[in-house]
């Protein structure tokens, strides 16, 4: 199908087709920019010549807040960065401070953290898959994904009382113990959830039109992905076998048996939108496997608050900690000067880094493809702008 485009491109290149460039301003309010991203598109007809992304429309000064708050007070602000993966954000921050403090957390806490983080990963991927479907024009899968996401939110809500931003994983422990029947709820969810993946596969992922729209589109070669520092499904979609949960293990991920899903270019070229999308779909199943194994060896009793320090004043020093967010590598660079507030906390958001590649991979595509590419990168503006 792309040969038609090639004819067009040749015509333009040879000068037989006289064209003029047009600048189109997409966003900050636009249905497919996933929030308040603004893209200045330089277009040649419908073909994208250049993209100038401008962000900062949601810059909420996280790093300034971190400097003004005490260590535990920063946790709620980490929630609000990547608001689709608040648990993972909490987890990464807690790990950074714990490593600086040199404290070990109880086994039970580690298990709960991993289960919560993996549930959050599923929830986040569901949103990503749903909105990606919406970007290519299929509205219904979006609602199916949101329907199932609600079941995860119900579990979170029973445990910590919040639906979206939890402030749950604290430095040294958790804010609450899990509710009675937590294991049963989670197991129930996994059982209910698996058929959904099949449903979404039938409705969207293996739909002929969907594959036509996403295969061969926005191809991101592995070396470019590495140079741009892409991570998460973005990197794995390009065929790079890299997952921090396995390759730079933290928490108790090394105890479980699971696979890193890597794109294989089954429908088109390796590293296209469809690959990135299918990595997310596959990862949901892997998360289910991790959760199931965690539930099997879940310590029944234990105090979740025993390791929470009374005063948190890490010694002078600095640390860079990274965790695998649903979107990729979330890094916290924390400098402590020995006081109760972080001296400097820099966040390396995966969305920010993944977004930087948009200009590189969208050139020469159509506007419709650009929307698909943006959807497949799966950005959360809260984290791009922080």
């Amino acid at each position: 199908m792309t040969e038609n485009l090639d004819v067009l491109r040749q015509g333009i290149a040879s000068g037989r087709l006289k064209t003029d460039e047009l600048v189109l301003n997409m966003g900050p309010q636009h249905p497919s920019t996933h929030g308040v991203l603004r893209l200045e598109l330089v277009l040649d007809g419908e073909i994208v010549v250049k993209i100038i992304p401008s962000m900062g429309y949601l810059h909420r000064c996280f790093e300034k807040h971190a400097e003004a708050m005490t260590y535990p007070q920063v946790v709620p602000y980490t929630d609000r960065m990547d608001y689709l993966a608040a648990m993972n954000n909490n987890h990464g921050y807690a790990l950074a401070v714990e490593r600086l403090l040199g404290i070990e957390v109880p086994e039970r806490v580690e298990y709960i953290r991993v289960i919560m983080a993996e549930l959050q990963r599923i929830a986040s991927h569901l949103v990503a898959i749903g909105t990606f479907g919406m970007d290519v024009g299929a509205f219904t899968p979006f609602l199916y994904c949101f329907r199932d996401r609600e079941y995860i939110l119900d579990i979170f809500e029973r445990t910590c009382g919040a639906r979206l931003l939890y402030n749950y994983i604290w430095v040294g422990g958790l804010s609450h113990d899990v509710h009675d029947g937590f294991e049963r709820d989670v197991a129930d969810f996994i059982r209910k959830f698996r058929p959904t993946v099949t449903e979404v596969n039938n409705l969207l992922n293996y739909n002929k039109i969907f594959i036509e729209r996403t295969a061969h589109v926005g191809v991101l070669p592995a070396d470019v992905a590495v140079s741009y520092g892409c991570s998460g499904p973005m990197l794995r979609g390009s065929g790079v076998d890299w997952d921090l949960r396995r390759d730079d293990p933290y928490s108790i991920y090394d105890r479980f048996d699971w696979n890193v899903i890597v794109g294989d270019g089954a429908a088109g070229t390796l590293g296209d939108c469809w690959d990135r999308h299918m990595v997310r779909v596959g990862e949901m199943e892997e998360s289910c496997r991790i959760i199931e194994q965690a539930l099997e060896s879940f310590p029944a009793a234990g105090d979740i608050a025993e390791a929470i320090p009374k005063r948190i004043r890490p010694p002078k020093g600095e640390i860079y900690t990274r965790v695998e967010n649903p979107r990729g590598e979330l890094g916290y660079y924390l400098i402590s000067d020995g006081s109760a507030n972080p001296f400097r906390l820099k966040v390396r958001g995966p969305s920010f880094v993944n977004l930087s590649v948009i200009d590189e991979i969208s050139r020469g595509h159509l506007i419709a493809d650009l929307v698909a590419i943006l959807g497949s990168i799966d950005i959360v503006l809260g984290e791009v702008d922080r």
Partner: protein
Amino acid sequence: MESLLQSFFGDNILTLLLYCSLPLVFLLLYALLAILGEVKVSAWMQDRLGPMRTGPYGIIQPIADVLKLLQKEDITPANADKFLFNLAPYLSFMSAYAALAVIPFSSQYVGADLNLGLFYLLAISSLNVAAIMMAGWASNNKYSLYGSMRAVAQIVSYEVPAAMVLVIVVMFIGSLNLQDIIIAQSGPFWNWIVFGGPKQDVMLASGHTLDASWTNLIFFPLFLGTFVMYYISGLAETNRTPFDIPEAESELVSGYHTEYSGMKFAMFFMSEYANMFIVSAVTAILFFGGWNSPFGVYLGDAFDAPWLVAVEQFGWLVLKGLFFVFMMIWIRWTLPRLRVDQLMYMCWKVLIPFSFGVALLVGFLVVIL
């Protein structure tokens, strides 16, 4: 119908006006129903309820929508070409309304019983393109312009296979008159064109006799394919998913009607739904017997009440039309959207060659049979 009105009001201009405005009444009622259908069907498909608070089960939701749109401020952007900007929605609605003139709602009622009915239909529904182009250009908005350019490219392209499909049917029946095409399919449902057309000789309204026999069954696969091709072209001409590229929400905000508010937006909205019905009704007329009852008999005949037959015929046509409208809604909420080049590929490289092929084949068969 005309004679009925004449008996009440006499032979004057009032009668004619009333006669002409009947489709308008139908169109407005249908638009309300279709808008409700769209939200309700989509809700059911998505595990939701849809409007529930406006009247029982939300059934008067469209009335509230229209009343609200009437109250909205009518914005004309400062840099718009005001004349064209204001003209476009009326033109768009007019083309949809004018197309209804030749749709035979029953054997008794057709706005204008033209011998060139199908030809007129093709011509008048293309007027919509001009309206869309006007709207997109006059809005002075890049998204509108992109939307209208896409729409024009799309609609003009898909006119070709649609017209080709019409040619196939016309070749088979031998008349451009829509009433003739329907009469040719009278009798039980196996006489419908999609099932190979009439199986015994039929006398058309024009006095010409169509020779037919059961050998027509060999047309069944051909006409089934023709029907599918027409329906796809129809979807594309009405800008419905998977061909809703001109108003692709995630790409072009709302395409050519981005800048329209209030009633002018409602006009575009209504003409979209009206076009959906026209395409569906034409599908029903060309392939599914039009106002013919699928059983070949009418309740009215049993009671010896010709008016009841007319009502039944009207009912059958509307029912068939609404079924195809429902199919459009179903498709819309299931499939993703195609891309521009894929759309063009579909038209020029798939539909047009196939429709030409089928036309040749049908022509050949008509001659030898």
